[in-house]
């Protein structure tokens, strides 16, 4: 058995890297790999890892099996009756894979250099004269999935028994809008409503309440000109929709 070329246990990401290193260190021609010798060296390397109590990844074991298979195929005399595609050198697939891998390693090196060069130049967009840029996150699909998992992993919120609501609920807001509209046959400017609830939360609740009311066909939003003020009026179903229990049920839903 040959002595094992010095290999560094921590430098191989995968079996192809290890094989390429063995080939390169011994200046072996990749198109004529002495498969018995390389297989032996490869297995010795795995043994060494074992002795160091390092878990060997499945990829390395799979490659060991592949090498042994190639080695045994090489020992058999070629079967003259076999079809042409089986007459191929049993090493061909492996050689292709090694070359493919090496190819991408060079490509990775090229990328690393490009990136290094790119890091030496700066771009400073300047929208300051045009106002913009909020302190929010630019998000990708990956972020979306990640965030969903994080939400699911969060401990459940304590059950909301004693609800101390200082602020108006969606149902209460719907009720308020209803009372307002009931008293008038005409249009109620949306702005008036907004001014009654100037807080952020108030406006959001108003918005949701209006959405519900429009959906329920209790209220119609009217805009007489483009970008003009929006007003509200009763829908013809107004009285039908507001059967006594509607808002109480909504309240349950929005708790």
């Amino acid at each position: 058995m040959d002595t094992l070329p010095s290999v560094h246990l921590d430098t191989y990401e995968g079996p192809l890297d290890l094989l390429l290193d063995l080939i390169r260190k011994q200046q072996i021609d990749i198109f004529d790999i002495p498969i018995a010798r390389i297989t032996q060296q490869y297995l010795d390397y795995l043994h060494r890892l074992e002795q160091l109590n390092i878990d060997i990844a499945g990829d390395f074991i799979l490659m060991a099996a592949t090498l042994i298979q190639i080695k045994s195929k090489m020992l058999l005399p070629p079967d003259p009756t076999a079809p042409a595609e089986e007459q191929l050198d049993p090493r061909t697939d492996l050689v292709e894979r090694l070359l493919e891998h090496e190819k991408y390693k060079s490509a990775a090196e090229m990328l690393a250099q490009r990136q290094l060069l790119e890091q030496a130049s700066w771009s400073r967009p300047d929208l300051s004269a045009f106002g913009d840029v909020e302190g929010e996150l630019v998000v990708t699909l990956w972020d979306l999935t990640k965030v969903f998992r994080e939400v699911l992993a969060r401990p459940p919120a304590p059950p909301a028994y004693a609800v101390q609501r200082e602020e108006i609920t969606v149902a209460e807001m719907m009720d308020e809008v209803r009372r307002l509209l009931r008293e008038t046959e005409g249009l109620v400017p949306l702005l008036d409503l907004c001014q009654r609830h100037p807080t952020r939360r108030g406006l959001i609740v108003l918005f949701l309440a209006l959405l519900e009311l429009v959906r329920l066909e209790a209220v119609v939003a009217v805009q007489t000109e483009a970008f003009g003020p929006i007003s509200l009026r009763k829908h013809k179903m107004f009285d039908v929709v507001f059967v006594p229990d509607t808002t109480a049920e909504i309240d349950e839903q929005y708790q």
Partner: protein
Amino acid sequence: MERAQLKALLEAIIYVCEEPVALEQLAKVLTDVPAEELRAALDELVAASQTEDHGVEIRAVAGGYRMYTKPEHHETVRAFVRSQKPPLRLSRQALETLAVIAYKQPATLPEIQAVRGVDPSSALATLLEKGLVVAAGRRQVVGRPILYRTSKEFLIRFGLSDVSELPTLKEFEELARASLAEAELPAGTG
């Protein structure tokens, strides 16, 4: 340093700085350049940027030099900036709510709240406003709450042709777990 090179360097420095760059600051870094040489190069830079084929000028302001777009182009520049679809930016709250809707759709407000544990009303309003989420009928339960689902805009923004293309949680877990395990294992064995 030759004049051309010096001007190039000064242009680069003024470009990257948000605040006006003072002559003294420059002199401190470019120690081998005499002050009068610096001043002359800066004057040339300022003059060159004034020609009508330049839309960005270097101006001496508040004791320093800074780049500005020229006012005569502001209207068109503003129109261009407005026409741009800005990259999708969302607060954490909005992103969480969007994630829940994307994976649980169609979902009602109470259902979203149950998953998130927080009142999602304000985040939902943002998502509706940005057109990422739309109302999609009502759940046929007491109160008939509105159902929400992701919009076509959502698909476009996230490069999906269909919601079934969303990575499943299992697919995500597999990737995420591998990257966590990586951090714990000695290199070379993973």
